[in-house]
């Protein structure tokens, strides 16, 4: 995607240029990984299985007990609005990831935040990372590091 294109993103109730969204250094989503997310994508600017992604996001939220302050239907609507608002930039990007992230919010150790941080953004699909591999195939490696056991952090949660 050409540089200098500034998509519009949703930050806890407001639409702002993406570059204006920064995470507070004391947001629990940053300093203690207290956040969940999901990613849908578009094909020719049309979202694909958005409801399934948002439903999974809300299962993650339920498991970790964060209330985003929006219903799943509202989250779908905000996500679709994000796609609509950025349609004018799409010819440079091809298609979008539609990325919802929810953190528990800004608070200190053993404090609970009063309000979740909610971010919905369109990010260009990173075609260059993998496009050439449709032809050649990519190389899988069995990692040394093991996955979480469900007793530690259920892998069904996207966090």
């Amino acid at each position: 995607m050409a540089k200098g294109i500034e998509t519009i993103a949703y930050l806890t109730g407001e639409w702002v240029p993406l570059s204006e969204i920064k995470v507070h250094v004391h947001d629990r989503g940053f300093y203690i990984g207290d956040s969940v997310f999901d990613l849908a994508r578009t094909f020719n600017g049309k979202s694909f299985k958005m409801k399934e992604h948002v439903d999974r996001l809300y299962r993650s939220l339920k498991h970790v007990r964060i209330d985003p302050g929006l219903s799943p239907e509202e989250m779908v609507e905000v996500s679709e609005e994000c796609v609509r608002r950025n349609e004018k930039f799409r010819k440079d990007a091809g298609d979008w990831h539609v990325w919802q992230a929810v953190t528990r919010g800004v608070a200190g150790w053993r404090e609970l935040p009063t309000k979740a941080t909610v971010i919905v953004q369109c990010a260009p699909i990173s075609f260059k990372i993998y496009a050439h591999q449709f032809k050649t195939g990519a190389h899988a490696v069995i990692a040394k590091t093991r996955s979480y056991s469900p007793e530690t952090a259920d892998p069904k949660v996207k966090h």
Partner: protein
Amino acid sequence: MAAIPDTVAYFNGNWVPRSQVKIDLLDRGFYVGDAVFDIARTFNGKSFKMREHVERLYRSLKHVRMDCGISLDEMIDLSEECVRKNEKFRKEVGDWHVWQAVTRGIGGWRAEPGPPTVIIQCVPVPFKTYAHLYKTGGHLVVAKSRSYSPEMLDPKVKHYSRLNFNLADLEAKDVDPEGWPVLLDQKGNLTEGTGYNVFIVTNGVIRTSGDSVLLQGVSRGAVFEVAEQLGIPYTQEELQPYDLYTADEAFISNTPTCILPMTKADNRVVGNGKPGPITQQILAAWSEKVGLDIVDQAVRFAPKQTKVLS
């Protein structure tokens, strides 16, 4: 306390007001937990065991293969400089946490990240979170969520990716509104809390879980030092909830509190339900060591704190 002062922080090579330290959405430290950190504290504005904290930070960095671009000695100097630059704000807050954080930097999925993000900041020691508990003791709760096994993520690494700790905090409060969680390992042994190590006292012996299942707390090391000075025996061993329930005393150790008595475990009374004599002895010796009455300071500053972070 009035508004939290806008302290001076180190952010990627510059000294800036802390309010200007902002994390990019595509920082791997934010969106995929690719970050390590450490926190030291000051006593009367003088840092305590800074070298030990920074050495642990560099072990974390080594394990996760990040190069923060700063030598260990420079990291100590920058941390001490951060303390000096904020000394003028200290009378309002009492003392500081000196918090170093390093992320792998800004970069998308499978993309090469940019230079690491490096943050050093002074934030007030969160006295209000625990000051009242020196007298009554806090309450431990064995959390449902288990700790990491070393095969998943070695608990010796001090990192930002802690969904299980966040859940454990909530689970502890389900059982006891004042609950402080302690997590079990995959075998059912006690490991650590969410930001503290756990100790019990049985028949005059201080007992704590072994090195392999927890973050090797700098304050945990200081407990051993103080115990040696006082001639109190201590052991590291595999402990189960049984040992906690049947102990004579329990306490936690971490950087802000030093140690904090714990008088209940899963709603059962530990010992006689009061902070125990060995706990008190260690706390007194620690105050002596740092030249400040740890409890008195916490109790004095706690009421001034409405929030501890901004």
